[in-house]
């Protein structure tokens, strides 16, 4: 146990400030207001791999490491779509995942937001449309925001999530 405590002490606090960027700072402000207003300071994301190569998943995982620590914004990942405000979808939509995507989408309570994460989910990416792939997620369900990248970096993912929050916070 001492070894563990010692290691934790040596490691220290690693969470980084987001890069100084006027747009992002503005987003950050809107975000705090938005999360407080719309989601009671607590935003739940359900991820769905709809055909990804797994690279996007690796980078989404990184959002939970100490450096990005996305939970500091009240954003956390949940196990059930019924608990989710946002569906973060990766991959070109494989034909075999079409039903699962639609059921997951239907299981979410309104209001719900859909983010297409990565080039494949945004536009079909390297796989495009074929007998096995329906391409962009927006071909099947309405998408509120897209995050480009193959895969998007954790920072890009975080910026994408923050931006949709900012737009959600605006009165419609």
């Amino acid at each position: 146990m001492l070894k563990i405590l010692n290691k934790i002490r040596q490691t220290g606090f690693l969470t980084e400030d987001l890069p100084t960027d006027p747009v992002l700072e503005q987003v950050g402000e809107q975000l705090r207001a938005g999360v407080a207003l719309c989601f009671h300071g607590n935003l739940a994301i359900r991820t769905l791999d709809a055909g990804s190569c797994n690279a996007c998943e690796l980078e989404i995982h990184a959002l939970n490491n100490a450096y990005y620590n996305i939970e500091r914004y009240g954003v956390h990942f949940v196990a059930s779509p019924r608990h989710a405000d946002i569906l973060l979808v990766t991959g070109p939509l494989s034909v075999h995942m079409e039903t699962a995507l639609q059921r997951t989408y239907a299981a979410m309570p309104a209001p719900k937001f859909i983010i297409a994460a990565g080039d494949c989910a945004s536009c079909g990416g390297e796989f495009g449309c074929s007998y096995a792939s329906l391409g962009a997620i927006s071909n099947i369900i309405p998408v509120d925001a897209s995050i480009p990248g193959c895969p998007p970096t954790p920072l890009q993912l975080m910026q994408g999530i923050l931006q949709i929050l900012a737009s959600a916070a605006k009165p419609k």
Partner: protein
Amino acid sequence: MMAHFNWLSELLARYQDEHVLVRRGLSRKLAPAHLLKIDAEDWGRAAQIAAEFGCRWAGVWAEQRGSTLLLNAALAYQGDHLLLRTRVPLEAPQLPSQTPYYPAASRMERHVQDMHGVIFADHPDARRWTRHNRWATDSYPLRHDFAVANTPLPAEPEQDYSFIQTQGAGAYEIPVGPVHAGIIEPGHFRFQAVGETILNLEARLGYVHKGIEKIAAGRDAHGLARLASRVSGDSTVHHAWAACMAMERAARIIPPPRALALRAILAERERIANHLGDIGAICNDVAFIFAWQQFARLRELWLRDNASCLGHRLLMDCIIPGGINADLSYDQVQQLLDAIEPLRRELTSLYAILDDHPSLEDRLATTGFLSAEHAKRLGCLGYVGKASGQDIDLRRNYPYAPYGELEVHSPVLHTGDVEGRMQIRMQEILASLGLLETLLNTLPEGEINTPWQAPAENSEGVGLVEGWRGEILCYVNFAKDGKIARYFPRDPSWFSWPALELLIHDNIVPDFPVCNKSVNGSYSGHDL
């Protein structure tokens, strides 16, 4: 090379004794793999004899050539590879199955059945595998008459796929997936359980099938390398390397020494990144959050060095036909070298904690046991095989450049449990750090690309690399004008998914996540 020659002569003699007619292919054609052409009717017996001889089964794939289907089965012996090849007519594509002699062949034969319409006559399980009823029973995506843009059939509940059932007092079934609770790839698992004890697990995969083999056809070499980079995003370096190696062998192109050394640097970095992530995730699955956060931290630092020195956190699209798309300056070599010793120190302190943590030991030791016999029969590779006594590592057994000049230490254990699979990863990280030091200190000067020149029609090549999950085998055949006619990447996950179903027996349902993570099969690399 002499030893390799001898085993093959002995196997050929065995075939002759058993009256299996074998014609040797041109030795250059698929070098370094040996090519043996046999009659379709001998397909099963040839496998039976090879199994008795002690060959490991390493894959099967088909390819349409005009009005015939060409079938290839890969076998391995002491790191050396052999391709059995036969032809069946397109209108009557039937031949014996190899599954009765090699359980490893079962699902890949079912994949060939779904994609090419080959009938494996005595296959013990003729259910579809990759097909989920979204294309018709009598149409086969990898045949030439199937258009890549074919409209899928409407989605309907899959009621005709019969899972293994359990009956009896207290026995019940748990269906899980395709969508899982975590941030992971999709697949369906069907558990039969009594109380918390798992009696049987059956996986149903294919959910992320996105037509990789089909959309590969017609691409040029660089387009195929991009696609190969995305067969399994966690293995982007190794799949791209295997595909480029296959294409380069087909085109008789040898990348310059600096490019090969750089490829190995990327490959070892990919191995370390994934192992760091997996060790943390295994600990996380038994609620040891400290280790998860620590290893996630080390992985993040490692990926940041990838980004700053090689331009991409996961090293995607760095390997291209003929060479490499990322070079290291002197300063970057120093930066990567300077990061090795600190990581080694971190690992020493963390390994000491993992080794001396009774509650971790309690959850990991003896959990998810895979016997050496099962690992062998399923052809398990990488850390799954190595933890169960399968001492297979291509970098050492059949070294490809630049590994021939390196001393590769490959660990092997006989515990066969989750802890063993984690231990193999821990040791492999240290071994890879040593390799990286040597590679970075001896990085040859010079060019990083040999100009790509497309080969003639029907030039074939086989690529073989030791990925972080184990051996990746890749086959490429060229059509006219430098376009790809056929691409088949065989991820080692084909063999670890069936292993998961065996090693989970008699474990409790709550231990499934940690058992699954210890195997960490690729869904995407398997579903294609």
